[in-house]
């Protein structure tokens, strides 16, 4: 039995010890906003925050997340109105949308450590998060937009 604190709530889950955090979130807690894309930390669709740091849930054993604050897309803001989410909506960044939780969680982590990123900063930070729809230019623009609104 593992105890996990997700989005402020504590959960007891009965899973095999080696179960990745991703599958605990999805299969056991039905927090389905965090996505599976590759299972090998190659695509970033599963990015969540562990104590505020971006982490790949698909290769993070759930055991390693015990005692830490886990934040998923569902817990990023109460009403879906985090400045990054608002910027995403204003610029209509998503297409199919499947990768966007990982994109947004990665973008939030970037802005938390670098409130005024350059294009190059964004490209470096976001290069590991794949979008097959190719919404990259809108994602970059939305990060700049969010940075402006967070500054103001």
């Amino acid at each position, binding site marked *: 039995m593992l105890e996990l604190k997700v989005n402020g709530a504590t959960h007891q889950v009965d899973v095999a010890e080696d179960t990745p955090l991703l599958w605990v979130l999805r299969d056991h807690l039905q927090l389905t906003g965090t996505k599976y894309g590759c299972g090998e930390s190659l695509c970033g669709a599963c990015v969540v925050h562990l104590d505020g740091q971006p982490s790949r849930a698909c290769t993070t054993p759930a055991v390693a997340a015990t005692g830490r604050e886990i934040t998923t897309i*569902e817990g990023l803001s109460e009403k879906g109105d985090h400045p990054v989410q608002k910027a995403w909506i204003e610029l209509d960044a998503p297409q*199919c949308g499947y990768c966007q939780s990982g994109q947004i969680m990665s973008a939030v982590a970037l802005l938390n450590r670098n409130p005024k990123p350059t294009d190059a900063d964004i490209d470096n930070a976001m290069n590991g998060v794949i979008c097959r729809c190719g919404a990259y230019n809108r994602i970059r623009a939305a990060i700049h937009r969010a940075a402006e609104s967070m500054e103001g």
Partner: protein
Amino acid sequence: MDQPINPSRRSFLKGSAVLAGGLIIGFHIPEKTRAADAAGSEQTFAPNAFLRIAPDDRITVIVKHAEMGQGVATSLPMLVAEDLEADWQKIGFEFSPVDPAYNHTVFGIMLTGGSTSIANSYEQMRKAGATARVMLTEAAADTWGVDASECSAREGRVHHGDNSLSFGELADKAAQLPPPAEVALKPKAEWRILGKPLTRLDTPAKTNGSSTFGADIYLEGMLTAVVARPPLFGGRVKSFDPAGAQRVEGVVKVAEVPNGVAVIAKDFWAAQKGRKALQVEWQAGPESDISSSGLEKLFREKAQESGNLAKKAGDVEQALKTAAKSVEAEYLVPYLAHAPMEPLNCVVKLDEQGCEIWTGTQSQTLDRKAAAEVAGLAPEQVQIHTQMLGGGFGRRASKTNDFVREAVAVAKALGDGTPVKTFWDRTDDIRGGYYRPMYLHKVHIGVDDKGQPSAWHHRVVGQQLMKGGPFEDAMIQDGVDATSVEGITDLPYAPANFQVEDQPVELPVTTLWWRSVGHSHTAFVTETMADEMAALAGKDPADYRRDAFQDHPRHLGVMQQVLKDAGWGKPLEQKGGVRRGRGLAVHKSFESYCAEVAEVSVQADGSFRVDQVYCAIDCGKIVNPDTIRAQMESAIAYGLAPVLKSRLTLQNGRVQESNFHDYEVLRMQEMPAVAVSIIDSDEKATGVGEPGLPPLAPAVCNALYAATGKRVRTLPVDSGRLAS
């Protein structure tokens, strides 16, 4: 119906539960479509609803096409809302059930593909809105005892003098009225919604984790299955030992299914671990030792023989003999996987009540028919709940319905009515077949002694992807698969002596349409060869095309626009130590016209970057310009990946690539700046999901030639060849 327990699910899963009260507007399908459907043994009875207006003014548009990022769940509601005179803020959507009422008006089945969603729905959706508006207006007129012609509908209300009633208030009364036989559509001058860059309706849910994809369906007691599939194309199970898998905690059942061995478990992790512990001996099929290098050799030999004639004008052989100058070229493109971000998955609940399916599919009618076959049911005993698609690109319109068929077989093998989700991991996706085929093109062009283009001989060698699918008979005629040569046979530059041949190769590798289908490789060849023809004729690539486009005004229109946007002819800004170049390509596909100019920077070692792409698109009437822009950006990104790096390699019959580390796709650092111009047009509205892709590869390769003087004829580009 079972309700998913996923707390983030959207209300559209509730289906008919929200139908009570309000106005439902439906249409009977045309006889032709109905007849086509009868052949597929579909029932014609249906609620036939595209539109629902609730007493609280909420309007729900029922979307008959799959939303895979292309924006259809916003653009179809826009078409309805315009002629309904709706208040856009009140508009929502849900996906339709499988029913002939929601058939594609041309294909006669429910299908999303070929960039046809707008084209086939444009009139239908606008009339759906207009019909409702007429009925609501009549209901208001009747309430006030005035003539309907004195009333007007605007932004969700009907007005007459000082009187005003909302659509919701009028809904029940309107529902009692007979629908009008004919309705007039609003003239363009009065449009308030069409042509406006409205925010997508599905965006908020896609930013907070609540959008429900097939992968996100969780039913009470649901199990998860993964399937061990043959590593060799055409292979099958010879024997298997389930013991290792059965010892894995959480594994519930190990069962053979027609396509392999399914490991069914309490969750995905247990199922995947179980599969790793499973021992399977595979029986190889014929030609199981194929390799990419062997196929290259085979294709090259095949290219020496005449293929099946797709087009013939004049005497190409003679013209080439007498040509003053000529170029003979061989092109090669590899197998490609679609690799949508959401791997395939399908939830099935098969019990005595029938079969219910939750999945993201582009092909509901045929999937339903296939599911019924596997389950031993009639199609009407199968219901498909279409979910959001985490990317499709063609893969979710399976020509054999493979992923739905397999998931139903898994549920059948489980046999106890428990819902089960069959889930593909990324390696299953990359190695699972259904690829854009590998092709070799052999092209021979020439100019006469006056420097005029005189001959173009074009032979395409490769698998016919329509083979083994529902459109085989329609699309393969006289030995020619129309998709193998599309974009070549209607070449706008065709000289008087012009010949196109399809040289088919039969292989066990499963193939499928991939974003832009045949155009994904034919435009690469035709538009780079057009530049070579221009060179033979001693002309600038744009001047050569301008001459050729005299009878092709829409080709000319997009080209002139993109040349202007790109500043064609002006010198490119030089950067220290890099060679720069600009390339042009113009291509018509899916009834839309697209021109692109790419700008590249090439390093001394040949590595290069696509800095900027200018794109001009003419897709007829504009529904949502921001969606059109987004689709051009998307097609450019999707099309750039195989130019830079995506490719599948076969060795000893096995696909070598397995995940995004070796099947590489475009990442943010490689994304060029993109500038899109949309031609203002009153032509029929046509597709935008695919037409932006075909010109990308040739525009980039023409730019690489301009920068390096080296022609690129193989994708992905071997950058070492471009070293200075």
